[in-house]
């Protein structure tokens, strides 16, 4: 699929080439005229949507499209944590080991996952399925300790649930995150981060409000009844994800009961 020559765009097979060029043009059009360099960060996410990391060819593509040197693009790509320098697994598992999550159990979860997966920080399992990383604060301290898979939240984890989560991913299942949308692949997620709408209706409809989010309101109004005031029946995640893998087919232990 790829040539080793990073100076040309030959690496992009014809059907991708027109597609990715079109998407890059859409990104550039979001910014004021003459300010195309603002498109660089989303375009780097876009290259990850195709390759799963920022390759030399991806850098060359951004440079050529935006009229920059490859050095200028590489300087940006290497600055930011989310741009991966090696192919990323289908699932990026991030364990928050910043202070709050770390002391509440995140450090233990991370140590257990390292052992289970046999990889260290920013490393991928030999089958290319899971990349593990310890992450800095993921802005969900009220749900600590948190783990994310392709940046979707798995809240209030412990070592046992963390191991179960990773085992499900190894087994080809897609556990339903505690809050937010059903999982998709790292590449699909990168496309969304590049600014292209998530096409899945169930993602748009996914609730993201857990007990800690409403803790204050519940003190004010009394607890929301267990049956929930919501008229809609609970969402049943039977729709396949974009790549036809089943979505949300596995509940987290102890997290699925309402």
């Amino acid at each position, binding site marked *: 699929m790829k040539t080793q020559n990073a100076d040309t765009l030959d690496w992009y097979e014809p059907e991708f080439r027109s597609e990715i060029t079109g998407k890059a043009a859409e990104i550039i059009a*979001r910014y004021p005229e003459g300010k195309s360099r*603002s*498109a*660089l*960060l*989303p375009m780097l*996410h876009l290259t990850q949507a195709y390759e799963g990391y920022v390759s030399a060819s991806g850098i060359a593509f951004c440079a050529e499209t935006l009229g920059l040197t490859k050095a200028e693009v590489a*300087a*940006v790509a290497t*600055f930011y*944590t*989310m741009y991966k320098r090696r192919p990323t697994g289908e699932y990026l598992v*991030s364990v928050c*080991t*910043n*202070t*709050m999550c*770390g*002391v509440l159990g995140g*450090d*233990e979860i*991370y140590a257990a996952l*390292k052992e289970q997966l046999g990889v260290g920080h920013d490393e991928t399992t030999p089958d290319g399925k899971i990349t593990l990383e*310890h*992450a*800095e*604060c*993921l*802005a969900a*301290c*009220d*749900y*600590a300790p948190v783990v994310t898979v392709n*940046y979707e939240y798995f809240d209030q984890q412990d070592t046992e649930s963390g191991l179960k989560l990773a085992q499900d991913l190894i087994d080809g299942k897609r556990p339903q995150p505690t*809050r*937010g*949308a059903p999982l998709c692949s790292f590449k699909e997620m990168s496309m*969304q*981060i590049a*600014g292209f*709408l*998530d096409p899945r209706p169930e*993602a*748009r409809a*996914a609730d*993201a*409000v857990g*007990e*800690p*989010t*409403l*803790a*204050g*309101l519940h*003190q*004010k109004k009394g607890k*929301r009844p267990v049956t929930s*005031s919501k*008229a*809609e029946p609970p969402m049943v995640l039977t729709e396949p994800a974009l790549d036809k893998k089943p979505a949300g087919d596995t509940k987290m232990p102890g997290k699925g009961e309402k």
Partner: protein
Amino acid sequence: MTITPVLTKRWNLERSWELTTYERTDGYRALAKALRKHPDELIQLVKDSGLRGRGGAGFPTGMKWGFIPQNDGKPHYLVVNADEGEPGTCRDLPLMMADPHSLIEGIIIASFAVRANFAAIYIRGEAVHALRRLQYAAVEAREKGYLGKNILGSGFDLDLVVHSGAGAYICGEETALLDSLEGYRGQPRLKPPFPATHGLYASPTVVNNVGTLATVPHIVLNGPEWHKDLIANEASAKSPGTSIYSLSGRIKRPGQYEAPMGTTLRTLLELAGGMREGHTLKFWTPGGSSTPMFTDAHLDVPLDFDSVAAAGSMNGTSAVMIFDDSDCVVRCVMKWIEFYHHESCGKCTPCREGNYWMAQVLQRLEGGQGTEEDLQTLLDTCDNILGRSFCALGDGATSPVMSSMKYFRDEYIQHVRDGKCPFGNARVMAGAH
């Protein structure tokens, strides 16, 4: 009135994030009202309300808007800082997930006031569900004529872009954010000139936090006096409004508690059910890891910008991280400094090198290999960072070190004397980094 839902008032509603829900609960009424006013009237209104920026610094919002030069022939920009990443801070993401239209309405009103026709929300890259919410909300708002050309027939045009970052805490610093938004490495700029005159694309720019802008529609609808009265304590008169206090850690009910500025930790702890059973409060941060820690001696400090500053810390983002008697302060500080070391952008030497060395000294202390001399080395290093680094990231890194040394020096010394962590953390620590 302790729990006072203003920003959080829709979070419990069915499909709270949808336009129909928002419109049914006063949504976009403030916009219609604002567009009938002169922009300068809106700036004055926000000045009169006493609203101060919720991103941490507490700068008066109306004054910031007033700094934008008018009739200067340059395009103006509004940029939203949604790069939430300060350890402990977790209130902007829930807001954007539960009520994205409140932010968008605030953006439109603010843009109208400062005469900006292009606005950008810079959201941290990892915040994917909040990103979805904002993108769909922007589509809904555009379809309804709240965004785009000739908004509600007013003649005012506004384009809004939702722009994801790529994982860099430093981009929460407003000039680093602007560099990142322009497609560069996120490194802070020399100030002055300030963004008010030379911001995005070297043009006049307002950079506001999510919570700040989401408050604006409420002020437009209810008036400045209503906002000024939202205080828990007379001492808080210069920091009016509600704050979403984000409580995390060793308490019974962690979560988001919106209350008037000046609410004390004692009150917040009552709301959150208190400390977990059998443990006592040891140390806590009033506003994130960059704000000097407090202890149980500070339970009655009104949590507002001025009162917290008077007590020797900063209100920051009301990110209240709570630790108890089972937590080792050296381990916590070590992990925070590992964070600052990882996130230092490398532009200035004091922050880049200082955090590099402090992380190693703290790892040594926590591992039981430290010396009493190390304590002085840490304080000396802080001296070389604080006030000497390019931006607030470096200054913030010194907060946990210096404040923990102030209140818990004996615990550091115990690590040295015992040759190990008295809390038995060595094994766990080895696994993490």
